[in-house]
């Protein structure tokens, strides 16, 4: 049911924008480009500008939004399950900040020092994400558990510190500030097929690892000792999953900056419907995250058209109230 919804979302989102293209036209462009309906001849009646808008501007952006949304939702699901903490997501626990700070360093190195290699930004982001996670996790851990309160506090501390680092880097590199700022505030504008291919491996591989470990994620909800008794290699599993979640987050941050709250609200909303079984929860969250972020991006493009907003602003407007309502709920209602 979610798959068709995603397909409809992708087509509609590609159609909507400051220059509206009829969804039917959009669909025909997409299908013909995919070689499914008559090839280039089938769209001879459609103006080249419309084809260009749909295929070269909108579609990569929409697909990228879907991938980023899926990445963040999966990473959030994994963090929440692993830490047995319903308020964990890449953003609240500082992993996004770590990725962003390191990615900023990578961008500056590229622009100022001319250093460049394939996947440079995502790999820097990954290293930053893992380091931030390491700090937050060890700060927040009390006797083998990671309580909600200390996790959030540690996340806030590390995030604030990293924001300061990013600000400092931007001041040092004043002439490049605008580009970095735009990227940081979480946007999908000016993204091309190239970006899409860059990020694609991360959610695909990450998703495969998550799915392979979904039974372990379920069992870990019983507690680490109980998981040990059920034959789970707890420490190994935790490391694999934390690193994978950081990697997936890093990929998303590298192409779209800091988009908050997707990893928090999507797993929650989906869990209310599917229950806590990660074998269902993970794919469902990925699809819902994709759909959610694509529509958030449509809003970002159209609400103040022709002016575009960074999509991170939209997710924050939706996510922050949700986050507050979660915090206000009694603790035992949001336990696993």
């Amino acid at each position, binding site marked *: 049911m979610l798959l068709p919804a995603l397909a409809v979302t992708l087509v509609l989102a590609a159609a909507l924008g400051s220059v509206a293209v009829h969804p039917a036209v959009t669909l025909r462009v997409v299908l013909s480009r995919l070689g499914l309906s008559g090839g280039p001849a089938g769209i001879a009646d459609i103006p080249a500008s419309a084809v260009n808008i749909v295929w070269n501007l909108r579609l990569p952006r929409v697909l990228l939004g879907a991938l980023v949304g899926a990445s963040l939702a999966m990473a959030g699901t994994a963090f929440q399950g692993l830490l047995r903490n319903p308020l964990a997501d890449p953003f609240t626990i500082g992993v996004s900040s770590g990725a962003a700070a390191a990615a900023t360093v990578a961008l500056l190195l590229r622009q100022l020092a001319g250093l460049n290699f394939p996947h440079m930004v995502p790999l820097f982001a990954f290293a930053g994400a893992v380091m931030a996670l390491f700090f937050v996790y060890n700060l927040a851990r009390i006797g083998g558990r990671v309580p909600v309160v200390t996790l959030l506090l540690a996340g806030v501390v590390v995030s604030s510190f990293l924001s300061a680092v990013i600000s400092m880097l931007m001041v040092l590199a004043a002439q490049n500030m605008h580009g970095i700022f735009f990227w940081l505030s979480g946007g999908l504008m000016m993204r091309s097929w190239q970006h899409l291919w860059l990020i694609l491996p991360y959610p695909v591989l990450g998703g495969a690892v998550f799915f392979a470990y979904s039974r372990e994620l379920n069992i870990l909800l019983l507690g680490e000792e109980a998981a040990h008794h059920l*034959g789970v290699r707890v420490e190994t599993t935790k490391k694999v999953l934390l690193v994978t979640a950081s990697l997936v987050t890093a990929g998303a941050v590298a192409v779209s900056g800091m988009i908050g709250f997707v990893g928090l609200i999507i797993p929650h909303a989906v869990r209310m419907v599917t229950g806590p079984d990660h074998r269902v929860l993970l794919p469902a969250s990925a699809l819902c995250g994709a759909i959610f972020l694509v529509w958030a991006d449509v809003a970002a493009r159209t609400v103040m058209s022709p002016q575009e907003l960074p999509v991170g602003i939209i997710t924050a407007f939706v996510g922050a109230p949700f986050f507050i309502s979660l915090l206000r709920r009694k603790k035992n209602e949001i336990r696993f």
Partner: protein
Amino acid sequence: MRIEAVNLKFAYGEKTVLDGVSFRLAAGSLCALIGPNGSGKTTLLKILSSVLKPARGRVLLDGRPLGSFAPRELARTLAVVSQGGDAGYLFTVEELVSMGRAPYLGRFQSETASDKEIVRQVLELTGCLYLKDRLVSRLSGGERQRVSIARALAQQPRVLLLDEPTSHLDIGYQREILDLLKQLNMAEGMTVVAVLHDLNLASYFAGTLFLLNKGKIEAAGPPSEVVTAEHIASVYRTGVLVTPHPVLGTPHVFLLPVQRGLNSRKNYRVHVLAGGGSAGELLRDLAEAGYDVSAGVLNVGDSDWEAARALGLPVVEEAPFSPISPARHAENLSLVREAKAVILAEAPVGHGNILNLQAATEALRGNTPLFIMEERPARPRDFTGGEGERLLRALKQNGGRVINEKARLYRALRELNSGDQLNQLQNLPGLTVDQERVV
């Protein structure tokens, strides 16, 4: 499966928790770990389940070191039910219990029909089938405990370890869970080791007990050898009475009253003629109130005798189930003469102890106040064919004061003590207040 522990040592930082624990537990044993708080029971269980690694020593399962089992292999061999049951509040009972099959499933394999059948069977066995679609967060304490046991059984283990499976449960649930474990042990030959807090439940339940104290095994063996007054007194530092369970014959522990300090002593001798469990409470109350209490003639092993002994009271004692001999009767008479008041407890009267009634007449003869306890006058207590009845009646007619509740006795004794004028009281018409009740 046989479990062996060899010289296990464990410390949390500086604090030594296990200090050389060794034992050998035969396959199919039903074992309870008992001991005071902080004696190392839970730590031992965690070492047996490989959650904690001992600083020294090792655990062997059927002769094979615990550390040589791969995690999933161990999970197919040994299952653990932790205190309070499993978390996993958002899962349904069936989902939770199905997790017990995880050690048998490959990474991308889902449960087969036979896995589902096993889950159904353990749910049925633990009486949880009707709960299968309920959320774990909606279960009561006893239900959660049972579901946890079902999850452990779904692992089809040969060893089952449980940490206080009955804590915070009412007696009905306690029994249900222990009986279930016993049944599993009997039917499947599963080796079961449970940490239990309650000594009586442990004796009721287990075939083998390990009594831990300060990180060592103080006593090991069947309940009758481990749960003894001596062991309990030394480990728990409190006086107890251990008597066989009236039906099962397993040891049963009762708290005993403690002797008070000397400062509340009234230096006032009260002699109690008792027997047959008629005066335990009375002896305790009097001793606690500070009277110099003596008792007689009691058969060794009688519960009044146990009570008097625990309280450290002087007792004239006779061999078990033997009639009072002339020598013991004479001793009893001398204690009656020394007393300032004599109490005839509401003991059954038989040919063996009718001399205790004789001794009561000695009190009247010496002008010592005699109190005849009659809290339950409707209950037949004469088993001598009339002789006892006749003597009792004579005692009442000759100045014995009938008391129908203990509080009245204590008030009368207090009055005697404060006035300390026996003769004066003797002459008071009030001494026979309950005359209307005299037959």
